């Protein structure tokens, strides 16, 4: 059963990685799915405000590590199983700058 789940996750994350390679899909992920905790407008919910001003103490590298590995002891999960390092970096840039290049 566990093996089946693992295989399911693998395929799913591959599919997700493809799907998120477009900027629109990444932005959608940030607002709709990160938005589950941080709010659709990213101003905060159960998780904190993640708009550019609130994150200005982060650089892109550190923030993409937070996205990939989560924050121990908090509800912030690691997204590494679901996205590539490139995608996490793009998300970090988007969060810090408020736009995606």
């Amino acid at each position, binding site marked *: 059963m566990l093996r089946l789940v693992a295989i399911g996750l693998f395929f799913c994350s591959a599919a997700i990685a493809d799907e998120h390679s477009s900027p629109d899909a990444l932005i959608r992920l940030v607002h*709709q799915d990160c938005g589950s905790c941080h*709010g659709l407008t990213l*101003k905060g*919910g*159960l998780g904190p405000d993640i708009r550019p001003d609130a994150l200005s103490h982060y650089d892109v590298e550190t923030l993409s590590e937070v996205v990939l590995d989560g924050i121990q002891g908090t*509800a912030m999960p690691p997204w590494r199983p*679901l996205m590539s390092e490139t995608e996490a970096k793009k998300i970090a840039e988007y969060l810090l700058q408020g736009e995606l290049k």
Partner: protein
Amino acid sequence: MKWIANALVALVMTGSVHAETILATGDLGLVVERASGSLLLVDQSERKMLTRISGLGDLSHASLVYSPDQRYAYVFGRDGGLTKVDIVERKIANRVVQSGNAIGGAISDDGSLVAVSNYEPGGVRIFDADTLDLVADIPTGSKTIGLVDAPGKRFVFTLWDDGETWIADLSAGKPQITKVTGVGTNPYDALVTDDGRLYITGLFGEDGLTAIDLWDDNPKPIRVLPEYGRGQQEMPVYKMPHLEGWARAGREFVLPAVGHHQVLWINADDLTETGRTETYGQPVFAMSRPDGRQVWVNFAHPLNDTIQVIDTPSKEIIHAFKPGPAVLHMEFTPRGHEVWVSVRDAGKVMIYDTHTFEKLAEIDAESPSGIFFTSRAHKTGL
């Protein structure tokens, strides 16, 4: 004589307008369009959208409750907006922005008070249901979750940061607060049973759940399933489960596990575990069909395209299907013959027969999330 003619015209017009717009509300409902800040007014029996009501602000994670006469909906937006919607007139009747960041609300058993749970600033604010005037402000210094109504004009809610549950009794006008401490670390959501007796809190920060007997004069936390937890095989949680869609099926409760691909079965009498069902993903809602015969489960990102249906007597999955990308919510018709499913990324609400699992209809909607039928007006805890 001109005034008589005018009066006659007015009378005739009123009569005809009235005849055209008369609208019984018992089988209506509202669907939250989370990205556009609007609601769809829907007709259950016709399986159709009647109109769209816009201008409700940020409706991410929005929920709503109904007045006892099923005419008004009170909509709780993420941005702290509390909007009173008149579903007979199909318009916003009143709106206040009561905080910076809110998460759900409740209406008192007599329909006179509406309470809103706030993240920023923490606490609960209580409003007159007619006027939306502030009646009571209960600061908590913590994000507040799991706000429900309880019989006797009471509201119950829990503090995410402090692990306390507060019971606010409004029966005497000013709120009398009873604080129950030691509920657990990071309670993330709670539910009250439909008899208004048990308040059950899910814990994110430690193992087990906590129950509080609201019939007890001196209520204390009762630890439930202490051996169940995020445990050794802790998994990332991409979306917090919702307990409000809890299921009571015969003599058991069914709850979505947090951090596991499971739903948990609990004996409703002694709160001991009676089983677990392995599921496709991390459950978000585990919802009982109103007769308790089935439990329908949807899942967290990225497995949120799927629904599984569990047969209650055997606790086994009897049906699974993929309505489409991002299934966010399910709502049963009051006697359970149909279920309405919001499929966010397909931009549809899909309607299924719960006996044959056949799809009956689709309604277009913009990023739909919560679906709320007016029958909720007559249920405690919804």
